[in-house]
């Protein structure tokens, strides 16, 4: 039995001077699992993602990512785990405006030696970036050369997905990545993301307020149900 990608035990979190926001006794995300986490806005899901991604500090309890207790780690230790093992997709504005499509995709390889090694085994960062872009339907050379701000929102989200997946991360966190997309683009995006995540062997933590998406995943969890501090 291998360790789960994410395991939270007795997690407690409150912003300074505020009521407790998160109280999760037990939460697990198995390796390669595709999990749908439902939660309305304001339910603390962004905070939860921040804690799992290791950019927020101050949670009590145990936060294990890739079997490492990042809650006990220093800031730079968490940065290392994030750089090496995590891919993140935001709701929108995912891309660095002054970098090209390909440069945006290979950005994580700039910050993680592990992911750089991984792509070098597959023929180098640019080759891997183009391969990923091709897989998610952005194989047009002219499109890849374009300024990222000229891309449609759907295209931007797919570039972000390629970036999250490059270098074989263990976990992809997607925070409402489809809320700016129409339903056709949304379903196609989720399909592509799921497919690519299983291809690269990454677990997927997909967060949304839209319960109708739940059937597209292996498992669905309602944040309100596992969060004792809710209400």
């Amino acid at each position: 039995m291998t360790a789960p990608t994410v395991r939270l035990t007795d997690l407690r979190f409150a912003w300074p001077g505020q009521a407790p926001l998160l109280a999760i006794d037990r939460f697990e995300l198995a390796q390669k699992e595709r999990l749908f986490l439902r939660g309305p806005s304001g339910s603390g899901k962004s905070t939860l993602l921040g804690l799992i991604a290791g950019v927020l500090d101050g949670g009590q309890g145990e936060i294990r990512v890739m079997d490492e207790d990042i809650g006990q780690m220093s800031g730079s230790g968490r940065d290392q785990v994030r750089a090496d093992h995590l891919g993140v997709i935001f709701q929108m504005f995912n891309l660095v405006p002054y970098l090209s499509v390909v440069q945006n995709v290979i950005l994580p390889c700039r910050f993680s030696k592990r992911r750089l090694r991984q792509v070098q085994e597959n023929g180098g960062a640019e080759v891997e970036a183009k391969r990923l872009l091709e897989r998610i339907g952005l194989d047009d050379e002219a499109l890849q050369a374009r300024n990222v701000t000229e891309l449609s929102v759907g295209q931007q989200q797919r570039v972000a997905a390629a970036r999250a997946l490059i270098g074989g991360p263990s976990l992809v966190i997607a925070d409402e990545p489809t809320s700016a997309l129409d339903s056709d683009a949304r379903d196609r995006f989720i399909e592509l993301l799921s497919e690519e995540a299983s291809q690269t062997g990454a677990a997927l933590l997909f967060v949304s307020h839209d319960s109708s998406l739940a059937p597209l995943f292996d498992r669905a969890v309602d944040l309100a149900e596992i969060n004792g501090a809710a209400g």
Partner: protein
Amino acid sequence: MGVSIFGLAWRSLMNRKVSAFLTIFAIALSVALFLGVEKARNAAKSGFDNTISGTELIVGAPSGQINLLLYSVFRLGNATAEISWGAYEELNARDDVAWTVPISLGDSHRGYRVLGTNLGYFDHYKYGQGQSLLLAEGQEFDDLFDAVLGADVAKSLGYELDTPIVITHGLGARGFSDHDDRPFRVVGILRPTGTPVDQTIHISLEAMTAIHVGWETGTRNPLADGITEEMVRSFDLTPKTVTAAFVGLKNRATILRTRRAINTQMSQPLLAIIPGQALAELWQVMGTAERVLLAISAFVIAVGLVSILTSILTSLNERRREMSILRATGARPLHIFTLLVAEAAVLGFIGAILGAVLIQAIFAIAAPILSAQYGVALIGTGPGLVDLYTIGVVTIAAFILGIWPALTALRRSLADGLTVKL
């Protein structure tokens, strides 16, 4: 691999071209101003030191060494007393003296000083690195009523060869006490020298005496109106006094001994000065103003550097998103910090280089014009160590200033986490 942090900084700046360009422009202008002041200051000092050369001593009636220098070389102010012709001859006859050039000042023409001298002036008076006075047109004075003009005089008054000119007694306005009974003729125009020679009208000592026949009391004596030019020409026109004399020595090594001898052992009390020494003392007086100018231009650079801060700090709000993307893709706080500090340093560096290039371009355009129009040679304004130092200091200062916005961005990106609350 991919894009380095400096590459990111550069691309980020290019993404904000207008703001980055304006900041670089502000830095470039301030650096150009500073280097311009610094170089012009040095050029002015060199030009000033080069006003007179080849003359070992200047001898006049006892006053002060700056006073004597001002009126004899710069044509500023007046001699309080003159030296008698006898004393001048005694000086000229000294064994250690190779040559002397007497000068007589006091009259003017339309605001330009008139200098009475002899032909030795054109041989011995030197400026710059020993350059002689050269005629642009015509010849040296020959006849009694011939005049040789400095370049500025001819240019600004529009005089050519053969233009008749009337000299005014003293330095007052024209018309009131003109020597209009004895007009002069322009026979020569000198090339520009960038020294007070350009603003001088040269006539012979004898002519200086001749126009003052009948003026012995200081104003025109009506009884003298009957004296014709022929009669004047027949007089003994040896001057009774001269204002000062330029002196060349046979052996430069005796300069201090000769000066002491002239100051103490002559039949009439005289003052001998060493031009270089007096120039240095005079420059000390003017040096304060020059240092103030330099200080002001250094402050202008500080203002330029603050514009880097302003532009980066104001960009931080709209770039919170960019920072959190970088953080999410694995950038560490040090990367964010380096990115912003690098941006500041890049702005400072490019601005400083452009500023140094700009001032060279300005000098390259201005030098021929200054030289042709005013005879001012810009000495030592080319690229030098001072440019390198300035570029280095500005870049380092920008780098250090960049720490402030870098820390701000860092603090924010840590607080923002993955989601930016805009």
